[in-house]
């Protein structure tokens, strides 16, 4: 890219610290006039070496570390990690704990979409939209906070169960928050679908076709916006998702507008899932009884083996590959984040677009740099 910079071309660096970016990464764009000719993503500004750290922590200590892979999807990260250990050790999760996990993960999905959407809206020039979404998100955070005791990094899941049961009056709180949130989402949708300036900036911009998206390996809302109904909750059901009624939200256009629309629909669908769970949730223990592993055993030895477990993150497919050698620490943990291919897809998407569209396209991907860098 740097080798042949023509006389009327120049290279513009966006980042690593830039208001448009959801985290530190650097986008080097080669421009001819106002058009992006070529671009390249530089990563690693917040590479923390989580995979190496996990090798040196016991399994229980690892839960707090995986929280911090992606700060907006802490609960789904935990689910993927805890699910790996449960598969290796053969721990059965009691049904009530499974329902609690589904409720918390769906709530966390909604808050992640709210923040991602607000951030994106501020990138395309609707800063007040960020204020609206954060307002709703704070209500939701209080609900999550009332169960896990934390806002961002929860450390809530345990091997075989969850840390705490749902508190008194949780159902009413959720009902109250969801009432407001439904109205808010309808408002957002109306705003997005009627504003002509917004539509001019998003419809037909950054179009990803299904073939290209599959080839690139994208998953989650950017893939579903192209019409591919790929959702781990349906394709490879974990927890109690196979007993629940929900549909995979898809759009066909594959552009920026469609990606945001998918997120709006998914928030509604998640609310529907949570409501079902709250109606169906059985009473019972939240930890398995009579297993070799104690409730909070700091040292637990997991049988040797290898496992790949994947869950549906707010951003797509989150997978953990864990190699255990029979000791109390994992031998190797590989984290497969959903944003990794999504961010990789930016350079081909940005080819030939004007500079002003970079932020719209990058923002609509809802990238999380922390997870790519790990």
């Amino acid at each position: 890219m740097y080798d042949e910079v023509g006389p009327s071309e120049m290279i513009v660096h966006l980042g690593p610290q830039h208001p448009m970016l959801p985290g530190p990464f650097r986008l080097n764009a080669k421009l001819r006039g106002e058009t992006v000719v070529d671009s390249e993503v530089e990563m690693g500004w917040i590479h923390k070496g989580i995979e190496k750290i996990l090798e040196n922590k016991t399994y229980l200590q690892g839960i707090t570390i995986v929280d911090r892979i992606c700060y907006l999807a802490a609960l789904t990260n935990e689910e993927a990690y805890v699910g790996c250990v449960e598969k290796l050790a053969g721990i059965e999760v009691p049904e009530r704990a499974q329902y609690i996990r589904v409720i918390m993960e769906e709530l966390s999905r909604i808050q992640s979409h709210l923040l991602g959407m607000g951030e994106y809206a501020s990138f395309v020039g609707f800063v007040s939209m960020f204020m609206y979404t954060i307002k709703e998100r704070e209500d939701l955070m209080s609900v999550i906070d009332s169960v896990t005791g934390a806002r961002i990094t929860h450390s809530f899941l345990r091997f075989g169960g969850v840390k705490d049961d749902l508190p008194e009056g949780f159902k009413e709180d959720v009902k109250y928050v969801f009432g407001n949130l439904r109205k808010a989402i309808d408002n957002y949708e109306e705003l997005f679908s009627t504003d002509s300036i917004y539509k001019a900036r998003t419809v037909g911009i950054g179009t990803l076709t299904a073939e290209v998206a599959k080839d690139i390996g994208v998953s989650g809302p950017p893939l579903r916006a192209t019409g591919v109904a790929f959702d781990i909750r349906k394709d490879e059901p974990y927890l109690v998702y196979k007993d629940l009624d929900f549909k995979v939200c898809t759009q066909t256009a594959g552009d920026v507008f469609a990606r945001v629309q998918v997120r709006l629909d998914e928030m509604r669908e998640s609310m529907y899932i949570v409501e079902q769970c709250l109606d169906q949730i059985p009473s019972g223990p939240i930890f398995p009884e009579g297993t070799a592993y104690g409730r909070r055993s700091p040292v637990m030895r997991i049988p040797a083996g290898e496992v790949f477990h994947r869950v549906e993150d707010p951003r797509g497919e989150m997978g953990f590959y864990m190699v255990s050698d029979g000791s109390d620490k994992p031998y190797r943990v590989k984290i497969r984040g959903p944003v990794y291919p999504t961010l990789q897809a930016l350079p081909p998407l940005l080819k030939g677009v004007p500079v002003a569209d970079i932020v719209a396209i990058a923002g609509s991907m809802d990238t999380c740099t922390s997870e790519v860098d790990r």
Partner: protein
Amino acid sequence: MDAKAMIDSLSSQFTGVIYDAQVESDIRILAKVKPESVKDICQYLKEKLSFGHLCCEFGVDYPERNEIEVVYVIGSYEHPVVLTLKAILPRDDPEVESVVPVYWNANWYERETYELFGVKYLDHPDLRPLVLPQDMLGEWPLRKDYKGFPNKTARNLV
């Protein structure tokens, strides 16, 4: 086509190259592969068995066996089966063919495996460090014998 039929099709197509193939469950299959034919197998998997989604690719270091395993986890958009392919490389000089021509998103995975494990990918379009600064190249931090870990504990914790 279920998991058993897939692994049979793969083994019959590449006799002697695929070994230790096993079906772990309905949706997980595992096989080891000779490093020199990884690309051909991936091509076959993508075109004939619709394994079009490379979930991830990474290295695992085994110093006692003097081996580095490069693991390819390949899923699909059409069926729920996930295939784990393992190529075993010598630890002193790990070299394997790049699968970027088949799976486009292997690009970053291979760059990361290169800088963290020192696995050299042949015919990779752009093999340079991804997440580490340039001066850390050659330290291979994710190998088990990496000495700089834990490098310096914070002052107030000592």
